[in-house]
């Protein structure tokens, strides 16, 4: 008994020493729990691990704990985060645009509105491509084809109701057609979708810029437009500058557990702001080719509300939500 007690005391002492040493590097949290509602290796997991890496380098957090629960655009993991972490001030959920749409189409009882928005970290614009052999040379060719006969203009992308699908729906609406007329071909994962475009099985494809940019560089796909506020690829116009008023991106961000106090939320906002300011974070963003889209606190909360309302409207137009 005695020996065990001594051991505990000794380890507590060691921990305290460790703490005080790190405290000098302005440690903000003793421990941080990061919940990734997707499998390891994907975009959300990458963001979570990057937060860990930057925090460790700057000594902002003592220890990290990760949990990955993947599936269905984050909707398998989200309920678990909500029920298990309620009121916990040192827990962060990684999420993003995909979750907004998935929550609406899947009709799950919980949605991304049930967690507390902390910050948007990155965003990736979409890109519209055609096979290199396609006779659609420009964006105008593509929009004319869509306008004339949306059914004959098949477009490949990720799962139905995702951002790729939403971009197509919005375009059809702007062109005066019904979003339900879209000939959208959903593929599981980027590989099969890219293969369908490279093999000219479909007329066009929509995905994130990074998914297709190497194919465009190699001349195997032709980029018609990107969907960001500004140009993402040299010589490729944005939809906005081409007169189609759509700005869409696959944003990724961080959320707090439901039921946390205003002070706890503020602490998380301060922590994420500190991470964003570290040189290590900037370095990661550059190597990974991410677009910094830092938006924090109330501004992010307002953005979330708008995004949710817009997404719901488009999905209703497409016929995937009621």
């Amino acid at each position, binding site marked *: 008994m005695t020996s065990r007690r001594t051991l505990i005391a000794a380890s507590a002492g060691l921990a305290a020493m460790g703490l005080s040493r790190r405290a000098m590097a302005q440690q903000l949290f003793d421990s941080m729990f990061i919940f990734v509602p997707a499998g*390891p290796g*994907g975009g959300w997991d990458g963001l979570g691990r990057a937060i860990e*890496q930057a925090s460790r380098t700057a000594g902002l957090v003592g220890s990290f704990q990760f949990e990955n629960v993947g599936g*269905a655009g984050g*909707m398998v993991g989200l309920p678990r985060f909500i029920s298990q972490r309620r009121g916990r001030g040192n827990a962060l959920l990684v999420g993003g645009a995909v979750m907004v749409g998935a929550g609406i189409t899947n009709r799950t009882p919980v949605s991304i509105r049930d967690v507390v928005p902390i910050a948007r970290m990155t965003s990736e614009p979409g890109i519209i491509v055609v096979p290199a052999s396609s006779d659609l040379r420009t964006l105008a060719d593509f929009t004319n084809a869509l306008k004339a006969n949306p059914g*004959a203009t098949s477009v490949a992308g990720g799962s139905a109701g995702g951002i790729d699908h939403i971009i197509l729906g919005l375009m059809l609406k702007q062109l005066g057609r019904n979003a339900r007329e879209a000939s959208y071909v959903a593929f599981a994962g980027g590989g099969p979708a890219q293969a369908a475009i490279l093999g000219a099985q479909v007329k066009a494809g929509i995905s994130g810029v990074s998914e297709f940019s*190497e194919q465009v*560089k190699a001349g195997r796909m032709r980029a018609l437009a990107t969907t960001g506020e500004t140009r993402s690829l040299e010589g490729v116009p944005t939809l906005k500058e081409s007169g189609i008023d759509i700005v869409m991106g696959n944003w990724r961000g961080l959320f707090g557990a439901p039921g946390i106090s205003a002070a706890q939320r503020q602490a998380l906002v301060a922590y994420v702001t500190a991470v964003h300011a570290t040189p290590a974070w900037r370095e990661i963003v550059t190597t990974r080719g991410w677009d910094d889209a830092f938006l924090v606190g109330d501004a992010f909360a307002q953005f979330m509300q708008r995004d949710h309302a817009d997404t719901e409207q488009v999905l209703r137009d497409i016929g*995937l939500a009621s």
Partner: protein
Amino acid sequence: MNAIDGLMLGFGHALSLSNLGWALLGCFLGTAIGVLPGIGPALTIALLLPITFSVSATGAFILFCGVFYGAMYGGSTTSILLNTPGESGSIITALEGAKMARSGRAGPALATSAIGSFVAGTVGTLGIAFLGPIVVELALQLGPAEYFMLMVLCFVTVSAVLGGSALRGLTSLGFGLLLGLVGVDLQTGQPRLTFGVPELLDGVNVVLVAVALFAVGETLYLAWRHVEGPAVVRPVGSIMMTRQDWRRSFWPWMRGAGLGFPFGVLPAGGTEMPTMLSYYMERKLVRPEHAEEFGTSGAIEGVAGPEAANNAAAAGVLVPMLTLGLPTSATAAIMLSAFQSYGIQPGPLLFTTQADLVWTLIASLFIANVMLVVLNLPLVGLWARILKIPQPQLYAGILVFATIGTYGISNSVVDLVLLYGIGIIAMFMRRFDFPVAPVVIGMILGPMAENAMRQALTISQGDWSVFVTRPISLVILLLALAALAGPRLYGVWARRASA
């Protein structure tokens, strides 16, 4: 750079001491995780991703490829010995492999799968080096219509595992198709048969179902039927392959490798379809004097073929990744994300911009293959000895093993409920003589076939003639018809000729 120069360069880099070390570590890890049901190569590589912060790109990718190839070797071990597939490419191996083990031929079954994996892995890796870019261009010619027809062709293979009663077999197939429907529909984003359980949104894991059907079902069935039975210890038999085993394995290896590689290269192919086709082919091509071994005492052809197919397909999966930067499987997707953490953008230019890395990788695949066969052959004797454990203890162990592995897939209690729920169904299926293999086939092919068909019909604007107007699609359809009707017609003809 041509392939020969590339390989010379690659071997030059790969044969360094540290790279050999990474390859050995990867092979060892891969074999280990292949043995455990549930944890596959994709998850393992994902968990190893943090090493990319401290290890050189070459070292990390050699490690990853070792894990990938190793898992394909390890997956067959539990399929054969314990009737518990470790990953989805080994499900078909369990059909004949477990029966061979039960009749005292575990050693030859394990040996033919290890050597077959080596042969097919080498053929597949040669394929990557010399044929990769050509095969991948051909693969791109296949669209959803052709994929649907490939699935139709694979459905024909169900007839080889139907067992005595077609009605019972087709009922099993229907159950598999039903399980495959669970989850969010890809084409509309709507949940199907999820009953408000969020864990079901992503569908039911196919390895979980295989483990439940084969391992849990059998364990429960034995516990139910053998209450007071005498303690039977299974014979281990000879470990070595006889001269006849070699002769019977050789062509199945070659055919399996030939089938597996192109299916692996297909962007929507994978390792499961070629194993089904290979099993069907071996069952039809087997010499008449061994035909009765299929489904009874276990035929070595039925292990050699699918095991070779699965390894060649694993090599094929790397082709679209290396030549086009396409992530066509979960494992390839994670490896591509590892490329990105080194600041390398994987794409069609990878072969030119990162020639050193790519060729070192290919060379290390050859090395990993040799290491794996050297690592696995001596283990055959050791593994086979597992069967000396008395049945009650052995099956209790299998149950523990299956439970841990399943919980490891997603740390979810819902999965455990599914495992035992489907296990109990499988127990009754055994009791009433329903074959379990069609369930797995239905579950794998059902969702793939559904999506391919709906994609094809979306592109053709609902015109069904697309399946017969596209030449390749028509050819595959005719092949499927021939495979279905051919053996019967031949049977009728043979009877007439002899009469």
